[in-house]
């Protein structure tokens, strides 16, 4: 999300603002909003409608939907293909951030690389931005586990050699393949609704904190994009299944699936870095369509294992270190902070240079973190 606030507007207030978001958005393991409960029937609707369900129930605005990949609603989702166990795991977790690498980050635009596209995205120097990174939570993990069990059998049935069990699969044209795609799409819809609800609570925190309305705060969605999903798409005249894992869609200018506002610029591409250095906004390119099926990198990727990060931080206070760098961090678990230390990740600035130089996305803006909420 972008805002109409600038760095000077939140100077000296950041700590309180981050605290208020930390309280308003459930972030740690097992955390949930006490004022929010879902019946199984409601959850079915979430899986069918995605972000639209959230908007219909007062979370965010109708205008947001235009700026979400697939308008936040994958049509071929089937709630019937999602197990009872997945429903059970999902019912209390909608609207929660989760731990691991999931985060809410308040940052500011430090540098603009492409003025025209930045203007189209509504981004400018010193502007406050908010980035939210989370997904389908336990419901998605359960869908994965349920279908892995099934796919291990189907791989054998279709004579598919598996170098590793986790790579089990089925032909897309098979009944099993079709059911999995429908269940995965339902999980994706859950993720769209989840982010939409969290966005709403972040907006609410800003409104209360600054005692200003949404219009004045200018908290508008730049884009919401998936980074772990298989989609049926057309490329070079062929209907394909494009699986973006640790990758994100990067559609070029002129693509018919982009909102009117971004038809000339290409799709906003978000590449988050680590909590201490930077994140980037890029734009999709024609070259990505030619070379990578309209895809680009999703993030920096780890360079240190979690154990190495734990060893490297022995005797250090990560939160204090971040604070001395001017970044306020709140985390439900200390271990999450330790495992997510900036040096555990590759330098995202180098990663985006590679992506930009390869021509599969075009650099638009650099965002520096100011405050981070982690699970």
């Amino acid at each position, binding site marked *: 999300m972008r805002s109409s606030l600038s760095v000077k507007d939140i100077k000296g207030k950041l700590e309180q603002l981050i605290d208020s978001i930390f309280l308003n958005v459930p972030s*740690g*393991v*097992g955390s949930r909003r006490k004022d929010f409960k879902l019946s199984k029937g409601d959850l079915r609707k979430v899986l069918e409608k995605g972000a639209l369900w959230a908007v219909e129930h007062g979370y965010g605005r109708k205008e947001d939907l235009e700026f979400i990949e697939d308008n936040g609603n994958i049509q071929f989702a089937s709630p019937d293909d999602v197990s009872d*166990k997945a429903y*059970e*795991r999902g019912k*209390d977790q909608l609207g929660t951030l*989760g*731990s*691991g690498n999931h985060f809410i980050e308040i940052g500011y635009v430090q540098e603009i690389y492409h003025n025209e596209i930045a203007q189209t995205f509504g981004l400018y120097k010193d502007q406050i931005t908010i980035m939210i990174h989370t997904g389908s939570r*336990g419901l998605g*993990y*359960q869908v*994965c*586990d349920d279908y*892995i*069990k099934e796919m*291990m059998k189907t791989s054998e049935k279709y004579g598919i050699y598996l170098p*590793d*069990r*986790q790579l*089990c699969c089925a032909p897309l044209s098979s009944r099993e393949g079709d059911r999995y795609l429908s269940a995965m799409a339902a999980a994706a819809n859950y993720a769209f609704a989840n982010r939409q609800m969290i966005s709403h609570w972040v907006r609410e925190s800003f409104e209360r904190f600054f005692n200003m309305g949404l219009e004045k705060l200018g908290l508008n969605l730049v884009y919401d994009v998936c980074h772990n999903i298989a989609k049926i798409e057309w490329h070079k005249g062929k209907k394909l299944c494009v699986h973006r894992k640790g990758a994100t869609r990067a559609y070029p200018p002129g693509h018919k699936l982009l909102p009117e506002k971004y038809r000339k610029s290409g799709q906003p591409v978000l590449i988050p870095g680590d909590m201490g250095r930077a994140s980037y906004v890029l734009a999709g390119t024609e070259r990505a369509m030619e070379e990578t099926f309209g895809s680009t990198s999703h993030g920096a*990727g*780890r360079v240190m*294992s*979690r*154990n*190495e990060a734990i060893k490297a931080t022995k005797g250090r206070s990560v939160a204090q270190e971040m604070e001395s760098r001017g970044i306020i961090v709140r985390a*439900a*678990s200390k*271990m*999450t902070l330790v*495992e997510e230390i900036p040096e555990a990740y590759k330098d995202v600035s180098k990663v985006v240079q590679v992506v930009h130089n390869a021509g599969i996305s075009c650099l638009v803006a650099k965002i520096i973190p100011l405050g981070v909420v982690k*699970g």
Partner: protein
Amino acid sequence: MDINERYKIIDHEADVGFEVYGESLEGLYKNATEALFSLILERGTDVPSEKGKRIDLKDGETLLVSFLNELLYMWETEGFIPRELSLKVKENQVTGSIIGAIFDPTRDNIIREVKAVTYHTFSLTCENGIYRAKIIVDI
């Protein structure tokens, strides 16, 4: 391997894993449960309320992964923390009961969220009467 070693946490690029040992399949399952929950939380010592669970799972050679995912499901949906396992493990079936406690934030300290127990590089072998399994969990 130290004869008394029940499990050891192993490195993985983006996730975490453990190698677990047991002198019987039942012992292996018990130690794997302990390894998994050592990644999730630090249990408090004072456990006043206890709860029992029945287990009856059938699966092929990845039965141990299914069992651990079942425990993860109980943890995530009910906050169930297993403590005492009384299991019978045959080749394709695990049955029995588990006694444990329900998570209490004033007593137990959460370390991290485990998304799933995976099948990635999973192995289970038996050599000289010692069972050994390798498991990677998705963080």
